[in-house]
């Protein structure tokens, strides 16, 4: 196997990053060509602006969205799960050690039945 050949053969296929890169670049070039063939006399600036239901955004709406609010829907959908997770992550050192010793005990019991040769 020559290490400079980028192809990886997986149990059910092949993967070649160079081919992927070429296809990616080719599609970029095609997109560029399509873009270049577009209408030259278009008005600039308006199309890319942010509109709220067709209206101009009021002043101050270009403020930054804080990290806390990104993915709100996701977290809202999984609220019961996250409530359980928050309960699990207490940040108290006794709980850290407790979890470790608990897993140790559980694994001792499990390996007692299935761990042997």
């Amino acid at each position, binding site marked *: *196997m*020559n*290490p*400079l*050949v*980028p*192809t*990886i053969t*997986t*149990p*059910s*296929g092949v*993967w070649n*990053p*160079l081919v*992927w*890169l070429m296809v*990616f670049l080719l599609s970029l070039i095609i997109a560029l060509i399509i873009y270049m063939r577009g209408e030259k006399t278009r008005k600039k600036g308006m199309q890319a602006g942010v509109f709220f239901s067709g209206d101009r955004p009021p002043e101050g709406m*270009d*403020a*930054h*969205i*804080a*990290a*806390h609010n*990104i*993915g709100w829907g*996701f*977290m809202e959908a*999984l609220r019961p*799960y*996250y409530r359980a*997770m928050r309960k*699990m*992550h207490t*940040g108290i*050192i006794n*709980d*850290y*050690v407790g*979890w*470790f010793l608990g*897993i*140790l005990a559980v*694994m*001792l019991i*499990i*390996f*007692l039945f*299935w*761990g*042997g*040769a």
Partner: protein
Amino acid sequence: MNPWDLIMNNAPALAIAIPLLGAFVTPLINRAGRKAMLVWVIAVLAFTEFIALLLVYQVNTYGIQVYVFGANPHTLTVPPDSGGIPVRIIFTIDGMSAFTALISATLGLVVGIYSVGSEKFQTAQEKFFALLLLLVVGMMGMALTGDIFNFFVFLEINSLAAAALVSYHLNKGKAVEAAFKYAVVSSIGALMILFAIAILYGEYDALNMAMIAQRMYQTGFSTYDMIAMTLILVTLAMKCGAVPMHYWVPDGYGEAPGGTSAILVVASQASLYGLFRMSFTVFGLSANTSSLGWFMIILGLLSMFIGVTMAFLQHDIKRLMAYHAVSQTGYMLLGVGVGLATLGTAAFNQYGLYAMEGGIFHIINHALYKGLLFLTAGAIIYRVGTSDLNKMGGLAHSMKFTAVFFLIGAFAIAGIPPFNGFASKLMIYESVYQLNPFLAIVAAIVSMLTLASFLKVFHSAFLGPKIYDVKEVPKSMLFAMSILAFFIILFGIFPNIAIHYLVAPAAHALANPLGYITKVLGGGA
């Protein structure tokens, strides 16, 4: 004897001796000035990196290497008057050891270069760099040693140096609290390992891993072995940050200074190495590898999913990345766990070995891109002064290089081609689903969630209106980041370089415990 032969012959010992010497000399050299100290530290780290490369070369060319401390000649594993027991402190280097040592040395060098810039205004820098070198010693020792008690010693060096490094920026006592938690958890874990070592020593009268494995194979797997195995494996799983024993990870990584989190990732991976070494080489011959493998797979699935979902919740940049470190550790556990679960069956050659290669390849990829991400996080904190994502924004206006490096790291961790994360994740998906399609589905979903949460970080830290009027970070920090970024792209486009020279030898070494045992117990010389 000329110097080249000296280095070639003693490479395994020098791998820990040089950073150890460096760590002890650093406080003395600091009296000659800060510049001299920095030059010394970087030189020591660079030489360690060279030795690690040399070890990889030696293992790939000549097979498994043994080095016996204080013996004459240095390959005499079993002295003639010892009754066939390897009594001395012994280093055994196979593919997996050399692989882990190389990662440790590389990240040590990169973090050393980075810390030149990022710790510029701190007090007691000589202690910081001495601890960094000691941490490298701990990781290298864990990776190279062939003696179970030495493994414990190096694990302790690793834990203590890491705990001290975590508390380096006091951060109004928060970092000290995190370091305290880390220290308590790791000392309880180390106590468990010591207990397990005592059990094994009482039973087999040997501390050498190969000797223990051979005697266990001969006498059969007893209940005592089972207890020792559980203690060691669960402790090492805790030390590498597997859910549900991961609680120390976000605290420790989140509070560590600048780039130190990057090397803490590798410190955890040294424990991961220990987990693999113990489960394959020491217990793999005797124990039921299928149940061990499923233990790792289940830990891996839990780590992947809970890690990534908890990361989505965080708004502290380093805590978020720390949860991603937990999540990525799950991929390695999953890949190697599938290999362990199928060990000895026909499925092993069909896809088990391949899954192991994927898992091991993911170790080096994770060290590279998570290292890069932690370095960019350190750069942001260095300039902005806060780690709260809610207060950041618009940094791409002023910190262009950092933004680009962050994007490279984020794409790599999310598994976007052509970066290196994709190559190893592909190998894991394609092989793991043959054992059970559910595993591959979870892995793919976790990958998507990873991308989502890193888009969140990128959006809130780099995009948006300009809030902070800051400059780009110092050149040494940018240089350290560019090294990692270069390797991410190199291993993404030419994955076979890593697989051929590093990953495949490591996977084959793990899968062949008998070779390890015969090399050590074959007498040497």
